């Protein structure tokens, strides 16, 4: 059967079970937009290509399936570079298709030409310039395979307009020929035995769970493993929800704004059982002083992570779920032979820290709204499996700290790149993926102004997300650093108390919108927001501009030097 390259592309997406794409048309991608009319695939027309990228990421976060975005050449392609970089950092499977000027004029500075493959090389797991329409099905199949296997990540297919218009003979390839791509998933049996031995001999173990747990769909296995060993679990910013916060063994989030017990448990540990985490500098603090007495088991599907930051005593390359399952077997055996180590002293210590240094904020002043309070009220008024999405800033840290994550895939945020503007489009993507779930975005007033236009998309496409703006009229996170480390010399961090009017703006975009500046209005407004399901809702919470995130490990300090903040001043 002869069809055009563009038709072959859309058909290939159908073959890959794509149900929705986020996109924005333009000259070079025009041929692809024609067959989209006849395809069962839902196309969501965004208002900016960055939005399409983050929506695809939100979709992938919520489902584990790759998100797909389609944009045009030149400015369309450059506008989606940020989401690609974001997805690369956080290992999010995403397929981006960009139009390109015709092959015949590539290199001539043609209208809307840019070197998309060159520009995106460093922010994709792999990318392709299609030079022959006949290759399209094969490339699409390879693209999905690469994006979703091994360490997941974004890929990009650059499709020149003349290639899209060329006829080809449709054939869906049987297999994927990628001689240079064979991710190891199984782990070395000897290393697994070694790991089990270390576990059996540790009296202060900590399970350091990272985003890889979610990528590998290993949350169930992790729970079983944690219960078998009795070890405490810390969940990194990328792993919130991978182990339930309400489980007694869960210590919560470690790192720069983690809680005292999670951070200190790692510092004092004799064995870090590292599962799909990468010793990010936001977790380790000053590397030299990080977990100085801990041996390290490091499980990762990306061999390059092993030894990149910290040399592991037992490196294991493989899929987190498969390896944890094998670790369970191996550990059981060693426990049967040598007995289970006694962790009671360790737990006494951990529980004492939990009691003495919990997360805390000032509840005495009821003239000013506290962001922590707003988050707690949204949490308590919403279903337990609500998907929470965040922007980047203090509000993101408050959200991670004060929400209770009890299910995997209910936390969507930009961890590695820290992309302001992520929240609104990512929330939309998550809601498209999970229409039955409630989706709340916790956004900052700064972040909101970066991608708010996508609420128009949400209103028109009937994607009823709920966005809480924790509005402190400041670039709060930067303000916090200037307050603490630049003698309160505030430079370009004040936004405005009056402009924009977030309520009017949101209403103009087709949303229901409310402003809350009194404590007594918090709960009724959240209830109202939760009852609206035909439109997006925006709630503008006017919060205390001086509220800072604590605990904090300032840059350059070791994790033994945690600042607990004013609540612990005696």
């Amino acid at each position, binding site marked *: 059967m002869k069809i055009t390259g563009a038709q072959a592309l859309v058909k290939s997406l159908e073959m890959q079970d794509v149900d929705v794409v986020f996109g924005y048309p333009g000259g070079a991608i025009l041929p692809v937009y024609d067959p989209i009319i006849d395809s069962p695939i839902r196309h969501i027309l965004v208002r900016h290509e960055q939005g399409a990228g983050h929506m695809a990421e939100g979709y992938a976060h919520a489902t584990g399936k790759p998100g797909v975005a389609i944009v045009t050449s030149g400015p369309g392609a450059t506008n989606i570079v940020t989401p690609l970089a974001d997805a690369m950092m956080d290992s999010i499977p995403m397929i981006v298709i960009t139009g390109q000027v015709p092959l015949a004029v590539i290199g001539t500075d043609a209208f809307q030409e840019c070197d998309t493959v060159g520009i995106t090389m460093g922010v994709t797991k792999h990318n392709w*310039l299609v030079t022959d329409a006949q290759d399209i099905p094969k490339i699409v199949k390879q693209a999905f395979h690469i994006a979703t296997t091994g360490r997941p990540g974004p890929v990009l297919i650059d499709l020149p307009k003349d290639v899209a218009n060329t006829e080809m003979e449709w054939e869906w390839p049987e297999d994927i020929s990628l001689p240079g791509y064979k991710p190891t998933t199984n782990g070395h049996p000897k290393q697994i035995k070694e790991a089990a031995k270390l576990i059996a001999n540790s009296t202060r173990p900590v399970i350091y769970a990272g985003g890889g747990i979610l990528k590998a769909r290993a949350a169930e296995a992790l729970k079983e493993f944690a219960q078998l060993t009795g070890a405490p679990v810390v969940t990194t910013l990328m792993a919130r929800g991978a182990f339930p916060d309400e489980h007694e063994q869960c210590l919560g989030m470690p790192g720069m704004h983690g809680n005292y017990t999670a951070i200190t448990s790692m510092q004092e540990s004799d064995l870090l059982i590292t599962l799909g985490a990468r010793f990010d500098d936001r977790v380790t603090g000053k590397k030299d002083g990080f977990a100085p007495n801990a041996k390290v088991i490091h499980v990762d599907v990306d061999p390059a992570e092993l030894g990149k930051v910290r040399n592991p005593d037992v490196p294991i390359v493989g899929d987190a779920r498969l390896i944890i399952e094998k670790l369970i077997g191996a550990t059981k055996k060693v426990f049967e032979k040598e007995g289970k180590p006694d962790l009671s002293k360790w737990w006494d210590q951990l529980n004492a820290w939990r009691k003495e240094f919990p997360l805390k904020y000032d509840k005495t002043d009821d003239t000013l709204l506290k962001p922590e309070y707003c988050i707690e009220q949204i949490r308590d008024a919403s279903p337990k499996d609500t998907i929470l999405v965040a922007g980047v800033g203090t509000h993101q840290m408050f959200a991670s700290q004060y929400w209770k994550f009890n299910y995997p895939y209910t936390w969507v945020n930009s961890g590695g790149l820290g992309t302001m503007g992520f929240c609104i489009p990512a929330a939309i993507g998550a809601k498209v993926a999970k229409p039955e779930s409630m989706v709340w975005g916790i956004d900052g007033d700064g972040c909101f102004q970066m991608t708010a236009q996508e609420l128009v998309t949400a209103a028109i496409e009937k994607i009823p997300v709920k966005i809480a703006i924790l509005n402190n009229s400041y670039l709060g996170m930067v303000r916090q650093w200037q307050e603490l480390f630049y003698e309160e010399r505030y430079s370009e961090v004040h936004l405005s108390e009056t402009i924009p009017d977030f309520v009017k703006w949101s209403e103009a975009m087709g949303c229901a919108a409310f402003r809350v500046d009194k404590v007594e209005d918090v709960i009724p407004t959240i209830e109202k927001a939760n009852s609206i399901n035909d439109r997006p809702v925006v709630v503008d919470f006017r919060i205390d501009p001086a509220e800072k995130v604590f605990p904090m490990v300032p840059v350059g300090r070791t994790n033994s030097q945690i600042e607990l903040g004013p609540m612990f001043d005696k």
Partner: protein
Amino acid sequence: MGQTSYSNSGHHIYSVLVENKFGVLTRIAALFARRGFNIYSLAVSPTEDENFSRMTIVVNADGTPLEQVVKQLHKLIPVIKITEIGNGEGIERELILVTIEADANNRGMVTELAAIFEGSIVDVGHDSLTLMMTGTPDQVDAFEDLVRPHGVVAIQRTGRIALPKLVREAPTKLRSVKAS
């Protein structure tokens, strides 16, 4: 140039088999730049199988985490196989082209040098000569050091190419004949 000896122990040689596709060299060069690794020299050509190319990459080990280089290279989809060629484990060759000022006074000495190193004269001018010489990196270093004082007009070295040394065990058939 002669001073920065190629046989410097701070260098590591990798023989890298890659898919012979457009843009692969860019991917490798970009990876080195992005990760802050140091390439000392790089030579590329197609192999016996036209689907693949072989690169010989010499990496400056000073300040470069070699294990990371190899692991990150492996993550590039078109990279199929990486073989590290350790000290003395490879057959290494390099080619040099050098144009030397050579008039009636020193022409004899220059051609003699070329002859000693089994080099050849590939171009002749009124008062200059272009020489070509191939050898191990050490020999090329030595040759360069010796011709330099005559006055170099231009110099170009290819960078190293290398293949692992062959295993020198006699085939079992031969051995069993001997043994009997």
